[in-house]
């Protein structure tokens, strides 16, 4: 599947191997800073093509294979763009074009301090007053939160008895009065990405800041997750292959032949192949506009477990050698896969619901 992109894949791999040097990956990991120069470079070289989701998926996989911290940093400035692409108005789509050109950085803010799994339980409000919406509340763990120019924000616009019905999405300019971002530090991994806590204090939003229709926000975000979870599965796939690359070279360099190591190698390889098949399969439905959320959630949940399993295997197999190699960074990066864009537990709830719904 997706063999037609092999040439593109090679180009991305070359870019990652050339630009994501060990020194650079270690430096941004240590400093916990966003590598903006790398973002600009990746754009100027046409590494990211947001018009083609298959290319995005492949780029994510190949970049994360070399280093997930830098790989995600380079591919995440567009986070949330699909919501605008699918439901946004002309003005918002113009802003999106500037995001694609690298003029602006975007982010998507759903999670709140009181909860991320229960999306419909969120507390941020954007109540209508005259022809304005007044945004109040706070968001937690928002990627790009402190560096974004615009954020897609999910907020409650009415107290509908069905909690899913009263939510709407807005495109919020981070220069708005009443916006405050506080960068969160000391993450376990993906430390080249920016994560922030946000406060919205009586931010005035215009009607044309509303994305799509009022009251449909929950459904837009769930649709977005159908896409973004494929990308997380691709991040996981990349991380797992990266871990396998390290295991393979360690085995070869040290002429390791024992069966215990061979069996572990084979288990990691099998998990990776299953993840690849599941991810590409779910992606091919999605890219033909026939998303199958259960397949997406399976790929995301299984893929993230694979990333963690492969990373832990690399640590254990390289033993004390893993400690001063990039392997320990792979290990720290991998764990986020099981948390963001819906934890594994949330994916399992989605999967179970669809299985029961099916024939």
């Amino acid at each position, binding site marked *: 599947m997706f063999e037609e992109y092999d040439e593109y894949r090679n180009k991305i791999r070359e870019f990652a191997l050339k630009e994501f040097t060990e020194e650079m990956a*270690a430096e941004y*990991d*240590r400093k916990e800073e966003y590598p903006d120069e790398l973002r600009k470079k990746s754009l100027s070289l046409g590494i990211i093509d947001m018009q083609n989701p298959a290319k995005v998926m492949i780029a994510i996989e190949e970049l994360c294979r070399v280093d997930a911290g830098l790989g995600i940093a380079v591919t995440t400035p567009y986070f949330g763009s699909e919501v605008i692409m699918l439901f946004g108005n002309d003005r918002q789509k113009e802003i999106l074009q500037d995001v694609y050109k690298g003029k602006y950085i975007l982010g998507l803010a759903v*999670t709140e301090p*009181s*909860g*991320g*799994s*229960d999306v419909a*339980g969120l507390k941020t409000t954007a109540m209508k007053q005259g022809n304005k919406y007044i945004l109040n509340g706070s968001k*937690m*763990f928002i990627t790009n939160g402190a560096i974004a120019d615009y954020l897609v924000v999910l907020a409650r616009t009415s107290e509908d008895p069905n909690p899913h019905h009263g939510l709407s999405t807005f495109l919020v300019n981070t220069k708005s009065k009443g916006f405050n971002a506080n960068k*969160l530090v*000391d*993450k*376990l*991994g993906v430390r080249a990405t920016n994560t922030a806590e946000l406060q919205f204090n009586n931010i005035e939003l215009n009607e044309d800041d509303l994305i799509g229709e009022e009251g449909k926000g929950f459904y837009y975000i769930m649709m977005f997750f159908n896409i973004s979870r494929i990308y997380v599965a691709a991040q996981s796939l990349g991380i797992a292959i990266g871990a396998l690359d390290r295991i393979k070279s360690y085995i070869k360099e040290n002429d390791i032949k*024992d*069966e*215990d*190591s061979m069996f572990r190698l084979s288990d990691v390889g099998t998990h990776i192949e299953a993840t690849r098949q599941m991810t590409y399969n779910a992606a091919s439905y999605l890219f033909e506009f026939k998303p199958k959320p259960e397949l997406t959630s399976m790929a995301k949940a299984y893929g993230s477990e694979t990333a*963690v399993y492969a990373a*832990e295997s690399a*640590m*254990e197999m*390289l*033993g*004390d*050698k*893993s*400690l*001063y190699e990039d392997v*320990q*960074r792979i*290990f*720290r990066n991998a*764990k*986020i896969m*099981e*948390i*963001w864009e819906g*934890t*594994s*537990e949330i994916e*399992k709830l989605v999967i179970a619901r669809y299985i029961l719904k099916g024939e």
Partner: protein
Amino acid sequence: MKEENNILKETVAEFCDKNLDEKKIESEGITHGITELLASQGFLGATIPGKYSGSELDNTSYEIILEEIAKNSPSVAMKIFILNSLYYPSVKGTSAETTLSDAASGKLNVAVDFINRANDIKENAGKLSGTLINVLGSDAEKIILFNENTSIISGPFGYSDRDFMGFRGIKFGDITLDNTATVLDSKNRKGEILEASYGPLSAIALGMISGALQKAIDYTSVRKAFGNYLKDFEPISFRLAQFRSTESVLRSALYGEADPYYVFNLAMESIVEIARYSVNAHGGYGYFQDFGVEKFYRDAIVMKSIFYGNQELRKLAEHVYSEKINFV
């Protein structure tokens, strides 16, 4: 557990609550002040003989100290372990034995190196040169080198910190030997020293399991999702309950009659999974240092990577078969 052991357990727990600020230890390292406190309590030289100002405690007491401290700070527990389970047996009966007084009183920092090989070091008229990469323990005056031989190297050394993921309190760093360091003693003792460490290492692992798990149990008792406490969701509370069973059985085994090989095996086979799931139960908060749970996951995998590999599994299998096995 005997009454006096319970008293010791409570004393150590109280000491940790009062004196060990784990977040600070993770970011600033184990300060001299903490080392002095550990020494004054007799924890630092737990098993070191009284004639060297050590506490000369029995194994159970030593393991209780390690477990209780590791619940709070795996780094501090590891520091005590290095002095008592690695340094003490390495210098015992050698000319370096007298340095144990400094070790027990907190005046001697010891680093351990499992990674570098003998040919990373050059010797010239008794003086050493070379670089040792990623040595566990910073600002050391002595290094125990576990390679082909077990060597004690005496400083001064050059030292530079490395970014490192596990046991941040004692840090990993690169040590340069600049024609000033000397070998104090060198014998092949690695096997016997590490084997005798199974109990103490299991005690640290148990403390880490217990510390991580307690955080997850506490968090899932107060955090809500979908209007329910996290503990109300079966997959969460069932899993945490299952881990508590493992923890409890492990503790009984460690302080009971169980074979240290099996205790160590159980500890190493469960520690990473329990620490990982404890992070999970915290959702996004678990991914940040502030919540004090991700460190258990980092420390767990580092511990497993250093102390539990193919060699240990081979030893375990031979222990079970009671004979040397010709592994293919």
